[in-house]
C-alpha cells in the first residue's frame, strides 16, 4: 500500500463540505456554553448553599464524564422517557444536531465556569477593597473591577477550551451528523484510504486550532495593553 499525497490535499475541498456544520456546532455550543458558564459562575460564587450546590453538582457531573457518553445519553437515553417525547422540546431533542449542541454546551458551561472562577479568584483583593472604600456597591464592583480583570486572566485557559471544543465537535459524527469528521468517514467508506483521508481532515483541524490560538493571542495582547509600561 502506498501513501497518496495527492489524495490528502485533493480531499480537503470535499472535507470543507462538513466545515459549515463543524463551525455551527462550535459557535452555537461555545455561545450557549458561555451563557451557561456565566450563570453557573454566579451561582458558584454567590456564597448561598442552595445556589452553590447545584452548580457544583453540575460541574462535577459534566467534567467527570466523557463528552461521547454525554452525547449518547442525550441522544439515545432521553427518548426513553415518555414525558420527553411528549414535551415541548421533543422537536429539538429528536434531532441529533440539537442533542450534540446540548451535550457540547453543557460541557463547555461546566469547564468555562471553572475557568472564569479561576479568573475571578485571581483578582487582587486590594482592588476590591479600594472600590469598597470609595462606596462602590458590590454589583458595580463585580461589573467594573472583577469582570474585566477576570476575563483577561481567563483568556489563555479559555482559548485552550475553545480548541478542545473544536475537536470535540468531531464526536457529532457518531450520531449520524456529517460534520468534517462525518464527511471524512463517508469518504473513507468510498475510497478505502483511511490514512490519507483522516490526515487530510486532521490538517483542517490543525488550521482551525491555529487560527483560534492566533485570534485569542491578539485579544490577549489587546487586553494587556495597560500592563506594558511605555517609555517616558
Amino acid at each position: 500500500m502506498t501513501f497518496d499525497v495527492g489524495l490528502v490535499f485533493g480531499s480537503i475541498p470535499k472535507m470543507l463540505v462538513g466545515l459549515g456544520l463543524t463551525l455551527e456546532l462550535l459557535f452555537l455550543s461555545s455561545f450557549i456554553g458561555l451563557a451557561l458558564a456565566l450563570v453557573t459562575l454566579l451561582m458558584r460564587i454567590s456564597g448561598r448553599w442552595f445556589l452553590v450546590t447545584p452548580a457544583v453538582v453540575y460541574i462535577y457531573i459534566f467534567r467527570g464524564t466523557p463528552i461521547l457518553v454525554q452525547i449518547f445519553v442525550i441522544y439515545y437515553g432521553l427518548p426513553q422517557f415518555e414525558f420527553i417525547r411528549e414535551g415541548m422540546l421533543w422537536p429539538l431533542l429528536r434531532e441529533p444536531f440539537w442533542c450534540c449542541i446540548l451535550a457540547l454546551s453543557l460541557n463547555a458551561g461546566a469547564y468555562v465556569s471553572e475557568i472564569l472562577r479561576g479568573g475571578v479568584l485571581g483578582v487582587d483583593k486590594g482592588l476590591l477593597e479600594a472600590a469598597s472604600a470609595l462606596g462602590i456597591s458590590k454589583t458595580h464592583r463585580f461589573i467594573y473591577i472583577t469582570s474585566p480583570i477576570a476575563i483577561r486572566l481567563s483568556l489563555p485557559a479559555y482559548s485552550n477550551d475553545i480548541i478542545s471544543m473544536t475537536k470535540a465537535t468531531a464526536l457529532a459524527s457518531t450520531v449520524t451528523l456529517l460534520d468534517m469528521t462525518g464527511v471524512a468517514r463517508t469518504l473513507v467508506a468510498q475510497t478505502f484510504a483511511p490514512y490519507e483521508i483522516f490526515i487530510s481532515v486532521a490538517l483542517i483541524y490543525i488550521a482551525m486550532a491555529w487560527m483560534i490560538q492566533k485570534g485569542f493571542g491578539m485579544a490577549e495582547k489587546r487586553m494587556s495593553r495597560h500592563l506594558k509600561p511605555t517609555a517616558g
Partner: protein
Amino acid sequence: MSEQESIIILENVCKYFGDFKALSDVNLTVQKGERIVVCGPSGSGKSTMIRCINRLEEHDSGRIIVAGKELTREVKDIDAVRREVGMVFQSFNLFPHLKVLDNLTLALKLVRKTPKSEARQIATRYLERVHIPDQADKYPSQLSGGQQQRVAIARALCMNPEVMLFDEPTSALDPEMINEVLDVMVELAKEGMTMICVTHEMGFARSIADSVVFMDKGEIVEAERPDVFFNNPSNERTKLFLSQILTH
C-alpha cells in the same frame, strides 16, 4: 469640644481574627480637622483599627460612629459612610485596567452619579492638586510608585470625603519617592483635612500631627501631642518602640 464636632468615635471596640484579639477595647475620638498619626509595631492592630472605621473589617463589639452614623450590619449605612471616608492603601490599589483619569472618575460616576464632563473636571482638578495633571491618560503601570500613590490620594479626594485614612501610604515606596507623597499629605493637612495616618514617618508625625497614637497588642497604649510623645513618653512600651525606630 462638643459632641457634634467628633467625626469619628470608637468606643470599646474589640476585633478578633479567630482566637487572636486584634483590637482590645479601643477608644478613640477624632474631631473635625484633627490629624492623628498612628504608630506601633507590626501586628499591633493599627491597620485593623483604621480598616474598621470604613468597615473593611467588621468589629466584634463596641461602637464605631463615623460622621454621625453608627456602623452596623445595615449595608446602606455602610456605603453612605464609605462615601465620607477616603482611604489610601499601602499597595496603592489603583485599578490596573483603567487609565488614571478613569480611576478617578469611576466612583464619581457610579456612586455620586456625577455627569461625565463634570467628573472629568473634578478629576483633573485633583490631579493638579497632587501635582500630576499630565498623567491623566496613562495606565497606572506606566507611573512610578510615588505617582501611583498620589493618584490613589487624588482618587480618594475626588469623592470629597470628610476624613482621610492612610494605611502606611509610604511603606511600599522607594526612598526617593516617599517625600513627594508626604508633601501631598502635608498640604492636605494644612488645608484642614481630617486625617488618620498609620505611618512610621516620624518626621511627618512631628510636623503635622495633633496627636500621636501608639498601639501595641491591639491596645491604644498612649495618645499624646507629638512634642510630649517624642520627648517625654510616659509608657515603657512607647519608650522601647521609640528607641527602636529612632536609633538610626
